[in-house]
């Protein structure tokens, strides 16, 4: 019995699990350990507070944009057949694999002063780079695909027969969407929105390229952490702990709340 319990398979499994889990969690523990003895100034500095406020608002707007623009696209990808659908489907994924720095440069080449659309926008009095709007744009660019993916899977998972049954009961397509499709896909939409929000909150590369690093305007938490490494480590540590907390909270919500269907029976 004892020999069986400590078979090679079991030992190999326990060793690798221990190694990997330690490798993944030790850095987080290190940050929290360093941050705990921090004085109030570290937690409540202007820079920390500005970055927190800016990050929460921009990530929320980015997630909202992803929901507004992404929901119809996700529904169409899941339900409709249209010309170029495979291409659209593939293009949606591009930002997920594109290095964020490339994404930032790409946005600059598009909306920048000498970018593709820059002069036209300038004529309209709109200048995007190095503004809070640029932060939102960079976050949306990088994070929206997470929502579209999740929402598409959610819509595809709703039995078509339910929608057909609804139609035969005399209910219009729009009302069917609101009463059947949307509530049943809601857990996936919610999970996708949460992941998008978390990804937007952590966005660094594209933001620093396209929006710069100005406190209160474009300096989100990841940027403040980066800058803090040179100027104010306490502030960086505090922000990191907050982001770690948000990450774990998001994962917990996605894992525990979303599958329960948001209390939808």
């Amino acid at each position, binding site marked *: 019995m004892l020999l069986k319990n400590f078979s090679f398979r079991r030992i190999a499994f326990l060793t690798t699990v221990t190694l990997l889990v330690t490798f993944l969690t030790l850095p987080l523990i290190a940050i929290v350990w360093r941050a705990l003895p921090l004085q109030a100034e570290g937690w409540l500095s202007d820079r920390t507070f500005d970055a927190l406020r800016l990050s929460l608002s921009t990530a929320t707007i980015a997630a909202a944009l992803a929901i507004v623009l992404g929901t119809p696209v996700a529904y169409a990808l899941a339900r409709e057949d249209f010309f170029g659908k495979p291409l659209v489907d593939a293009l949606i994924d591009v930002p997920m694999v594109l290095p964020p720095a490339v994404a930032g440069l790409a946005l600059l080449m598009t909306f920048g002063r000498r970018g593709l659309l820059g002069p036209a926008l300038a004529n309209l009095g709109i200048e995007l780079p190095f503004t809070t709007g640029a932060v939102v744009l960079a976050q949306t660019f990088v994070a929206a695909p997470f929502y579209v993916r999740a929402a598409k899977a959610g819509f595809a998972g709703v*039995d078509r*027969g*339910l929608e*057909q*049954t*609804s*139609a*035969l*009961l*005399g*209910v*219009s397509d729009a*009302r069917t969407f609101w*009463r*059947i499709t949307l*509530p*049943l896909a809601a857990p996936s939409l919610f999970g996708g929105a949460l992941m998008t929000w978390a990804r937007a909150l952590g966005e660094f590369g594209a933001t620093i390229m396209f929006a710069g690093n100005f406190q209160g305007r474009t300096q989100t938490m990841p940027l403040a952490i980066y800058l803090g490494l040179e100027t104010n480590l306490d502030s960086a540590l505090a922000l990191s702990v907050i982001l770690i907390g948000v990450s774990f909270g998001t994962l917990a919500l996605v894992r525990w709340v979303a599958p329960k*269907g948001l209390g*939808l*029976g």
Partner: protein
Amino acid sequence: MLELAIRKRIGEFTLALALTTPKNQIVALFGPSGAGKSITLAAIAGFVTPDAGRIVAGDHILFDSTQRINLAPQHRRIGLVKQNLALFPHLTVAQNIAYGLWRAPATAQRARVEHLARLMRLEGLVTRYPAQLSGGQQQRVALARALAPQPGLLLLDEPFSALDAPTRAQLRGELLGLQRELQIPMVFVTHDLGEAYFLADQLAVIDAGKILQADAPGKVLSQPDCLPVARALGVKNILPGEIVARTDAGCRVRIGAAVIGAPTCAFAPGTRVYACIRAERVMLLRADRAGQSSDENALDGEIVRQVNDGMTATLDFRATTQRLAPTQDYDLQIELPVYIYERLNLARQRAWTVSLRRNAIHLIRRDDETTDRLA
């Protein structure tokens, strides 16, 4: 009344069927998987648009390719109960039933839900969610929901296939009672012959996108039109033969080495036919009674094989001299209830005389094409 005449090509498959049913009848579309039953329902419901044709329910034209009428499913006034029921999982029983009543005032909705819940014996369950119900209860909710907006036609797509046998039998009975009470025409799809026979006023046998025969179930069962129908309806003994004589009283058919008396038929002597004999219509004669009736085609022989599933015994019988199917090792398949099997001591007693009563024999024309298919 339902009038159906549609044609639809889907890849290699062509659906081409016409069916007219009298008022308020239950029509069963019976056939193997892939025969086109479900596409037919989808066409009636409006989920599939036929290439050409006409679908009329009562005085309501649902589809007419020449008049360019093609009503949206929303306007067809059709109730549907799907195989998987398609209950809305996030809505309660009451909300499910009331789903199609959303235009009606709240009080009218409540009254209708209450009425249907009582009719379908769902009182006390209306606040539950579908997942909290038994299969039979879910079935009743699906039926109540489909009936709530008072549709002109009810479609049922293998509605009982997911249920256990006792529940299925009970719900079949309830459905029949409901149909007689509400006087609503129904079309239901099944590949269960017993279900089709029990429920249907009209049994339409479908195969490869065509209606092979549509008639009263008893008629289809005892007098299949053609070889595929006989096969689909489970006729075990389909024996090739030839008419040798015809009189007003009946005709005589040569089958293998035997000449058998059959009912009157329209076929001239020399016509090649199939003799269809249902396995449960072959009678075993007790030795002391054999040969007493001149009306019976009596064959002596022995039982060469038997299978017993606990309810029905299936026997393979081989005639001693009057072989009907000389190429096989047996001539007739016989089915009888197990209690008779036991009472006759069939497990031991192998030598028997069987009787083919004239009216148990149904003749269908045999042409060369079908001969080839049988061979």
